[in-house]
């Protein structure tokens, strides 16, 4: 599902629904990671265009966990602190493939429409 919030465009707004895709993809690429790491990675790759607010990121992580796509556990970080690490499950990996496919399809449809009318 693709929901685009058109009312108030700003750089911090992540398209709801695509956030799941971004988080799953990040965990797929980097392996188990804490919330801060996920946010940093998305910020870097988007060239600072997507800054995730805590109020968006953590409920999203919980939602993914409730759906059984990620699991979480407390681990020790490189600099010897404890943090909650999130890891992709098999179901999460399947979901990621499905969402990537869905995203590509949506983008191509929208592109076609833009080209036709523009």
């Amino acid at each position, binding site marked *: 599902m693709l929901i685009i919030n058109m009312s108030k465009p700003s750089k911090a707004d992540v398209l709801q629904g695509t956030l799941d895709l971004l988080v799953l993809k990040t965990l797929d690429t980097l392996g188990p990671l804490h919330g801060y790491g996920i*946010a940093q990675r998305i910020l870097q790759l988007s060239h600072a265009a997507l800054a995730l607010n*805590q109020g968006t990121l*953590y409920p999203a992580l*919980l939602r993914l966990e409730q759906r059984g796509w990620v699991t979480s556990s407390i681990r020790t970080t490189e600099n010897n602190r404890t943090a909650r690490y999130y890891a992709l499950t098999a179901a999460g990996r399947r979901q990621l493939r499905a969402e990537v496919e869905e995203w590509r399809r949506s983008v191509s449809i929208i592109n076609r429409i833009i080209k036709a009318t523009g």
Partner: protein
Amino acid sequence: MRQWMVRLLSVGRRGARDRELDDELRFHVEQLAADYQRRGMSPAEARVAANRELGGVDRARQAWRDQRTWLPAEEFLHDARHAWRLLRRSPGSFVGAATILALAVSASVSVFAVVDAVLLAPLPYANPGRLVQVYERFMSARSSDASVAPGTFVEWTERARAFTALTAVDTRQINLTSGGEPRQVTAGAVSSGFAATVGIVPALGRSFADADFNPGSDSVVLLSHGLWRSRFGGKPNIVGMTMTADDRVLTVVGVMPERFLFPGPEIEAWIPMPVTAAIRANRGSHSLEVFARVRDGVAIDVAERDLQAVAGDLRREFPDSNAEWDVLLRPMRRALLGDTRVVLAAILGAVGFLLAVACANAAGLLLTSGLGRERELAIRSALGANRARVIRQMLTESLVLSSVAALAGVAIAWLVQPLLETLRPVDFLAWKPIAIDSRAALFAALAALVSGVAAGTLPAVLASRVRIAAVASQRSPGRGASRARFALVALEVGLSVLLAVAAVNLVRTLVRLTSVETGVDAEGVVTVSVSLPETRYADGARVTAFHQAALERMRQIAGVRAAGATVVMPFSGNTFVRPFAVTGLPVNSTRPEIAHYRIVTPGYFESMGIRLRAGRAFTSDDRADRPLSVIVNQAMRREVWGDANPLDASITFAGSATLIATVVGVVDDVRHFGPSAPAPIEMYWPAAQIDVAKSAALDRLRRNMTFVVKTGGDPLTVVPALRAAVRELDVDQPIAHVQTLASMLDRALWLSRASAWIVSLIGVSATLFALLGVFASASFAVSQRKREVAVRLALGAPPAVVSRGVVSNVLAAAALGAAMGSILAWPIARAIASQVPSIEPVDAWLTSSIGATMLIAAALSCWKPARRASRIDPIEALRVDG
């Protein structure tokens, strides 16, 4: 789906994960700040920037929690906790309301358990909704239904199309002589449709097959579970064993399941009834109970019309025996339960009323505490709680209250549950144990939910209307609240008047029933039944000789004043009918009439205490070789002869033109069907003359007599001597069904007696509840009006005037309620009376006096609070906070 499960499961569980979230968020902020610091910010700047960037920890925490659980559920739980704390803080009204609700719930759950076992539990037959009992109906008589003549039944089985199976049952006594003391067993002789009609597979062995109904190969028996246990020790290898009954050797083919009964609980075994030429020809003696399975897709009334068409054909083909006979179908449960259904429905209704009174009461108490909390609610709404939220909170409180009440109620019901099962009379039909099971608990939960919402809605809506300004200015409670209190008092008084009228009326009915003349004198009377087997007593003269000798011996026993015997006892529920005609004397009607006949021996009237009105009683001279004599009862005399003299009139019987009997006496009426039903038209035949009729059915009836022995003291002390008297005549002859006539009468009365007790108990508790409610409302009304009262007292109003003002408001409400209750009691009682004919009609005197009593009680309950009001110290009261 899975997500919702997880979220619902985590409702109300605020655990480690929530605390860890704070660590997680803090970690995030610190990492970000550290990052900023590395890029050159000061530690303080970095922290501020990180916080700003992340949009605040609190918001994140809230958003996370919203995701974690389901918010409405979380709020409900919060409200419930809050309610629990509040209710615990005001234990008085809480305990009061909870107790009343708990008692009401326990009463209704107990009643539900009974209703469930009797009215709702499926009957022990395959697809029981298709089963009906079939009666014959004598078209010109008032009596509605009768047993079926064997020959007519056989015609039905061959002609009716609307049924997949029909079976007839003839209840017989057989004597088991093998395997221990001789014991009389009540057996159902069933025709070949039995297995297909009941559709139940035996627990052991097989049911009857067609071959079992061929004369000659019919020496088989099916045992009830109870008889298998008691007589045969529950032997698993019983099938194929033989037993001796009435000197015949019967092979056991099966044992029926535990709760199977057909048609009544008294039947302990089933034997085949082959269709013989004699049975086929007998269309005059109405002696069989007939049951049928209606074909799938055929409505019951369509099946009835089908069989009525057959009855119409039979009327034309056999006018001698079948003229005037029609048929009637009744669904199985109705046929088996009779009046019990109506009585249970009435009790269920009464319990519903009780629950309603309890709800009104709890509502009153909640309203009271709700109004006392105006300030709290005002503050809540000032802080932004919207109206729906306040209503929800108040409703939650009443739900917490009613849940506590439901738990307590189920606990009480569970504790008194053994009582229910022991109070249950043996012949009370229930198709599962009467128990507080999961269904009853579900019912309690439902009752609690409904009563919680019912009790909570009014207080909640009123509380949500609280105006901040009103509370701040310390005004008296609003108009809506006092109107609601007025309505509640009126409702409570009205409902309890209704219940009290019903209760008093039932008690009156009971008193009338127990004091009614049944026509017999039960003092010192014991009955035993003796069933002579056909194998040894095929000859009528032998039967008569046995009866005479046995009665002679019984009369010799010390303490015995009289002895006689009959084929059918009053109050036993059994009867036999026969159409008859009267010749020779002025007769009211030319149409054939129908009479209930009783075959009796000399001494029967004397030992039952049935008074002779005219003519003579039977003597040993009424023998088979003498002219036939009959004795009629007063009801028959009135119906047939009016004021004329019935003695020496001649009576003839449909289907047997040669039989002419002469009326030799008239006896008093006996209420054969119990005290609540009028005495039927009865005639008595001397047992010794039955041979003349040459009827196998009548011969069988006569071999099966109940001996009635009148003693001067405790009747049970002569039982061993009675048994010995029978043994001396025939060693293999047991006596059975020993009981006193008084206990038979008690059993006939138990249903009306028990229901009257239950409903009175309910009525009394409802009345008490209502008085409690009136009292609470009155006290609260006074305390709410303290300021007003104080001001008036301070301004010099006399205390009497002040207290009158307080009382008049509550009394007006009570008067309204009493009036409504009295008026409504009328049609409701009439509706009940139309269902249960034995219940007395309600009169204006009863309703108005009960209404007045309730009003006086309400006045008394106001008296104390009013006096307290008039003694308020004005200074003290004006200082009172609110």
